[in-house]
């Protein structure tokens, strides 16, 4: 664990100093929250912007009734801060659209504003390559509630995704959710009081590092689900994060996959291959610091691979865990093991290597079709065997890194 995480996360409260020089033809469109037509003016600015332009949000609060959207490539939306006194997009009175802000164009840079209380998702980007989410706050201000929107920050079907220095609170599904995408970095961000703090789903090649995932139901999730256009999730590194006290009771609407995440889960890997979990601080997660499981629901997808494979857990610091296991029968297992279960929980499906010097509990359910009621929990040693070659670091296009420098 490196110490720079807290310093970098601290940037969230510091005003941005350097602004990269824009191309000569680019212009800045300034919009203000004042006036009866402020909402229409903002949406019009997002429509009339041309590639290279910046839409600059003045300090103030927009009381929005409809979703905003951006479909022009290479546009920056820049606010004047995420805290009170900054640029606040308040969707408390939203009447339409499935999200607060929808981005459907490439090379978009979102920075330094807040999105509050959307009825559905906070900020969604779909098919938006090289998107940069930076210094944003997405929040449901009343805290965890089942009536909150599903995802806070929601890039999907995109190549090259950067989520940097954001804070998300209160999402009834995942705070930061990256789905069906490739080449992803989520870093220096805070996810708190969501059902899932950070979730990487049906995606390839992701680095999730230097984040704080705290007080969610589950801290960091790496999932793969069947019957979706992109599946076979793999090559994900989860490192240098603080994942602690994920103790918020699950408040996801039933039916959604995260509704099955047990309260008190640190890092949860389901049905992926080549996932590395290393150098994290994992503590005070009542069910487990690390959980590795197969997809155990019935499905009809012949191409789907439900097992976790080639999962590596190493170099993590473990604090207290397993003292309130919320998986079915967990309390009985804990009682039989002297009050708590080991910090690493494996359902027995697929394969994993655990080099952390802590105990592993296996449920011994190698076949995902076996019901969980037939679990035979017992300590397991997963330290033998040769770990696969280490995954390379994710490298994003230089144009993306330049935006956040």
């Amino acid at each position, binding site marked *: 664990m490196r110490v720079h995480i807290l310093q970098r996360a601290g940037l969230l409260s510091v005003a941005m100093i350097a602004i990269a020089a824009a191309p000569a033809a680019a212009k800045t469109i300034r919009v203000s929250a004042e006036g009866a037509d402020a909402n229409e003016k903002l949406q019009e600015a997002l429509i009339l912007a041309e590639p290279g332009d910046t839409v600059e949000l003045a300090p103030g609060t927009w009381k929005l*009734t409809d979703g905003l959207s951006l479909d022009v490539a290479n546009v920056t939306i820049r606010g004047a801060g995420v805290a009170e006194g900054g640029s606040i997009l308040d969707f408390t009175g939203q009447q339409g659209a499935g999200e607060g802000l929808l981005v459907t164009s490439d090379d978009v840079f979102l920075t330094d504003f807040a999105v509050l209380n*959307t009825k559905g998702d906070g900020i969604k980007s779909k098919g938006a390559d090289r998107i940069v989410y930076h210094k944003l706050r997405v929040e449901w201000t009343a805290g965890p509630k089942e009536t909150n929107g599903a995802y806070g920050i929601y890039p999907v079907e995109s190549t090259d995704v950067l989520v940097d220095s954001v804070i998300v609170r209160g999402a009834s599904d995942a705070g930061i959710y990256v789905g069906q995408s490739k080449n992803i970095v989520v870093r220096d961000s805070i996810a708190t009081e969501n059902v899932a703090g950070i979730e990487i789903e049906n995606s390839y090649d992701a680095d999730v590092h230097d984040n704080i995932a705290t007080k969610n139901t589950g801290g960091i999730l790496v999932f793969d689900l069947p019957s979706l256009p992109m599946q076979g999730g793999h090559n994900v590194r989860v490192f240098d994060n603080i994942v602690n006290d994920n103790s918020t009771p699950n408040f996801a609407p*039933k039916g959604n996959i995260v509704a099955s995440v047990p309260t008190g889960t640190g890092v949860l890997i389901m049905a992926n291959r080549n996932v590395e979990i290393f150098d994290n601080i994992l503590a005070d997660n009542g069910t487990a610091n690390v959980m590795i499981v197969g997809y155990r629901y019935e499905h009809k997808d012949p191409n789907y691979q439900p097992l976790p494979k080639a999962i590596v857990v190493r170099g993590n610091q473990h604090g207290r865990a397993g003292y309130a296991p919320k998986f079915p029968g967990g309390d009985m297992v804990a009682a039989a093991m002297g009050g708590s279960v080991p910090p690493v929980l494996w359902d027995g499906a697929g394969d994993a290597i655990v080099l952390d010097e802590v105990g592993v509990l296996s449920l011994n359910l190698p076949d995902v079709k076996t019901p969980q009621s037939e679990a035979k929990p017992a300590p397991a040693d997963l330290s033998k065997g040769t770990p696969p070659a280490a995954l390379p670091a994710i490298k994003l296009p230089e144009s993306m890194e330049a935006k956040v420098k």
Partner: protein
Amino acid sequence: MKRIVAGVAAALLCVATGATVPLPEGRQGLIESDAIPQKLSAFGLFPFGPEAPLVSFGYTLRTPLFSDYTDKKRFVSIPDGKQARVLADGTIDFPVGTVLIKSFGWADVNEGRPVETRLLIHRASGWVALPYIWDADGRDATLALGGRRVPVTFKSSDGTTHSIRYAVPNKNQCKECHSLNGEIVPIGPKARNFLFPAEIKRTTSIFFENPAALKPAIPVWDDPGSGSVEARARAYLDVNCAHCHNPAGSASNSGLFLRWTDDPEGVNYGIGKRPTAAGRGSGGMDFAIQPGDPAHSFLIYRLESTDPGIAMPEVGRSTVHKEGAALLRQWIAQMPKQASR
């Protein structure tokens, strides 16, 4: 080239007499330019007021998209000397310079005049969607790129009074539905759904290279004589959902695909399909469609909600389409129940 003034009486008159109305000067040039005029009148499409566009022809759809019980009037303007062509997959290839025009209103609002008119213009650079809201005096309409909420009160066919803040979509929302692989495309006029008014059927060969390919195939959603409950439900899903719910549409990531051509037995058609990114839209249910049990099918739950965090479709609906939802309920109810999984 014949051209009609497409008010109903006027259309009959013009076609019957073969009258030709001269086009306003420079109209086609503006249509094919990159201009986004503030006033609809600039296009010269409505020289005689909102009820009577000067266009190639009007058309209807066997099963239309539900839009808050609006009466929609649909027209096409095809440039002189050019023709549309029906492609093998049933979509219609309209030539550059074509304008698809759709006006939305209610019989009991503004004395039946339209509230808004949307243009879908085929330019050399691709299709562009422009929303115009009619001015209070009904003489012209003004561009509303950013969209707008318009308060209206109307009665639906069962006599229920609705007071809603009707949403005129913004330019981007037009694209959310009219999107295929990120490009704007027309969605209504497809060979399987397209109907000419009887009076111009004889003249389709003027506007279409291959008019014989215009074979309406899907049933009329609310006409039991036109197809079984299942067939009509699938027509309804095709028209109301599949413009987003297809592998190249705005809802591609959901894995729920509801085109007329999709396999209705497949999990991607919703039967036994778990929510993907539904959030509150799951309503606490496990499956989009639970055979035999519409009350536990969240597809129904989403269609019957107007909460933006739950409702489907995501744009273009501030009221529940009771009659449409009832058809889908009937379809799901008559599916054989499956063992619970």
